[in-house]
């Protein structure tokens, strides 16, 4: 096995790992800690990655920090569920509230590339109306972004990530064809399609960030089905193999195994740099601008932990909204057994989708949802059997033997923002001596109504294809958003449409935290599109002397 990527930082001494070669290296520029760099970016995932590339390509000096290691997928990734839990943020977090959120693999990442290293690659656009949920649809909050501008950035993001998708997408305004052809369907996706057609709903092959033909040094996807545990062939277009190499080529520095614990602010109230832990000690990097891109838990945690006498409630928090309006997405499912062999573990897990209920507003609740085909691996599958049905003993082993005949549909549903759902700091401390996050969550009546609607629809679809032994997984959630929302005015938001904090002009936030609402589809493409836009905006602001 290759040298342990957790033992010591790999991005050092003027080089970073070449993710496309066993033991390979690429040159990396390095910056002094004592001379202020133009930008420090905290986090290298779907938000941080595009920003690092965009800023470096714009001529800024920029250093990206990630608390996790710098993997070379070809040599570091085993074809194994358990081993690959090393990609998740598994440090302690406290969860409470009426519906505590299960943290870990489905909503976190701790690696250069962030959670895109193990995400399911589902790359969807938000419905245009969601950017004006409050004024057009009557719930949640409006975004300070225009959907037409986002449509252009979605196109750019889809091109940058070589998204494979259908020729014509069945819902929403016209979009260009996807850069790569759609992947073929597996058995589980075929059954989604049959069920949807029986119900009169449209469906489509899911737009996915794994290439269906060679792209650069990425070979086409070989349908291993371990996507959520890291892609060992580099077919997946994660940040690790797309924007991060671009950022390095343009002169960015990456610091892996570097945990940022505090943002320093000066007497004038501006941010001056970050304190970070690397190789056993606390260090300090001076910076003219700081971008926080740590996602909906670590971003507010860092802002809250950086409180000073001048900012007693944490940084960028004059609105009191940092940490509030945390949203997750409902991720309930319906499962059944087919007489046929489905062998649902083959290929990407979500090869087909119906977004019908994102575009039909004749419902007695606000928000929307989609559902996708499923392909859990054995450990994921036993987790469903034990948590949803409470099975154990011989009954569990007998149910598990049906593995190759199982079929399932899983929703990604919109949950509404609520200030009571939030991230705060617990008294308990982690291994760096930093207070751990406390994550408080409860579902509202609208959330529950949406979930029940989706479960009923998914069950109908499975019944329509002849599935038997049908059961519901009632309690799952996945992606996160909120906790540092963007908005049009400082009183009711944390950042502007440029992801710039209202309170501290050289402090920026650029990840899923800025979402005012979370929509009924997977968020990663929207995070990446916003990051690409933010990089462009920073370049424009700098050009006119407004940084």
């Amino acid at each position, binding site marked *: 096995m290759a040298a342990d990527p957790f033992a010591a930082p790999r991005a050092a001494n003027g080089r970073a790992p070449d993710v496309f070669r066993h033991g390979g290296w690429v040159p990396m520029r390095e910056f002094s800690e004592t001379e202020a760099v133009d930008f420090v970016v905290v986090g290298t995932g779907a938000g941080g990655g595009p920003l690092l590339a965009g800023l470096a390509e714009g001529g800024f000096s920029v250093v990206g920090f990630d608390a996790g290691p710098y993997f070379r997928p070809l040599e570091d990734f*085993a074809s*194994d569920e358990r081993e690959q839990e090393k990609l998740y943020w598994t*440090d302690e977090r*406290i969860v409470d509230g009426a519906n505590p959120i299960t*943290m870990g693999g489905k909503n976190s990442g701790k690696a250069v590339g962030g959670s895109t290293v193990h995400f399911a690659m589902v790359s969807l656009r938000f419905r245009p109306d969601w950017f004006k949920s409050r004024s057009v649809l009557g719930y949640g909050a409006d975004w300070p972004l225009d959907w037409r501008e986002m449509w252009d950035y979605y196109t750019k993001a889809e091109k940058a990530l070589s998204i494979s998708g259908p020729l014509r997408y069945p819902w929403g305004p016209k979009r260009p064809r996807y850069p790569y052809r759609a992947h073929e369907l597996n058995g589980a996706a075929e059954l989604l399609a049959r069920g949807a057609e029986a119900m009169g709903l449209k469906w489509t092959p899911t737009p996915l960030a794994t290439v269906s033909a060679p792209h650069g040094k990425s070979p086409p996807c070989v349908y291993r089905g371990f996507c959520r545990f890291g892609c060992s*062939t580099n077919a997946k277009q994660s940040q690790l193999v797309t924007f991060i190499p671009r950022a390095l080529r343009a002169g960015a520095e990456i610091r892996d195994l570097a945990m940022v614990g505090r943002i320093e602010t000066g007497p004038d109230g501006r941010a001056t740099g970050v304190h970070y832990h690397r190789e056993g000690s606390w260090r300090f990097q001076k910076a003219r601008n700081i971008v926080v891109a740590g996602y909906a838990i670590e971003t507010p945690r860092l802002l809250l932990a950086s409180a000073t006498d001048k900012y007693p409630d944490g940084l960028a928090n004059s609105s009191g909204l940092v940490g509030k309006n945390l949203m997750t997405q409902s991720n309930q499912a319906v499962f059944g057994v087919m007489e046929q*062999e489905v062998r649902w573990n083959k290929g990407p897990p979500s090869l087909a989708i119906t977004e019908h209920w994102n575009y039909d507003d004749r419902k007695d609740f606000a928000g929307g949802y989609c559902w996708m085909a499923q392909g859990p691996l054995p450990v994921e599958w036993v987790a469903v059997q*034990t948590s949803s049905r409470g099975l154990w003993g011989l009954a569990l082993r007998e149910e598990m033997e049906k593995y190759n005949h199982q079929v399932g549909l899983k929703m990604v549903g919109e949950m509404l923002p609520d200030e009571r759902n939030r991230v705060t700091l617990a008294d308990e401390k982690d291994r760096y001596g930093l207070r751990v996050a406390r*994550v408080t969550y409860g579902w509202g009546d609208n959330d529950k109504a949406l979930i029940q609607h989706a479960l009923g629809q998914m069950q109908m679809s499975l019944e329509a294809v002849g599935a038997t032994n049908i059961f519901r997984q009632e309690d799952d959630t996945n992606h996160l958003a909120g906790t540092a929302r963007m908005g049009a005015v400082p009183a009711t938001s944390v950042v502007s449409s440029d992801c710039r904090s209202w309170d501290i002009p050289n402090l920026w936030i650029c990840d899923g935290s800025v979402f005012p609402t979370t929509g009924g589809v997977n968020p990663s493409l929207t995070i990446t599109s916003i990051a690409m836009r933010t990089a462009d905006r920073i370049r424009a602001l700098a050009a006119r002397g407004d940084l």
Partner: protein
Amino acid sequence: MTDRYPGYDVLARRWTESWNETTRQVIDQRLAVPREPRFFSATEWRTLSAVCDRIVPQPKDRPPVPLPAYVDQKMADGLLDGYRYAQMPPQGEAWQRGLAALDAAAKEAHGGPFHGLSAEQQDGLLRRMQQGNLIGKAWGGMPCKLFFEHRVLPDITHAYYAHPIAWNEIGFGGPASPRGYVRMGLDRRDPWEAVEAALGEGTDTRRKNNHGG
């Protein structure tokens, strides 16, 4: 239980294109898990072993997957889940307290430690734990239902289904790198996937499953 995939052995594919070197080393390490406890005391280990035998009862005609060893490894190495319910202590403490409380409940109900009870008595106590009906000072305020749902079930069953023996049982192909799959559709099987006996691909299921491809 019948043998659904007779003769199928994921480990026989170790030197095929479905296993890369990194995967071989990871699975070797898993199979070589230390069998003696590093984290649990002798008393806790006896109780834990008895709990594992009921949560995942294993057939007598093969060596068992050493489930207590994997639970011990998770605790000893401090492999965390990434979250903890506010009512729960840290994972190692939860296990120690939960096992002691289960033993206390066994003595109260049946006059002896948990590992000495009959399978029916043990299942009865585990069901009461699952339903939240074991109470007493020994739990120290930890809800027994949460202990069952968030420690007992996942720590034991995840270890079982991460083991090649369990993959054989359910017909899962295990590692798939660099070679993935070609035949994706319904009722399609790649030659290196397990053959299910009941589906009657002739009488030579065992031979097909043994070819090692």
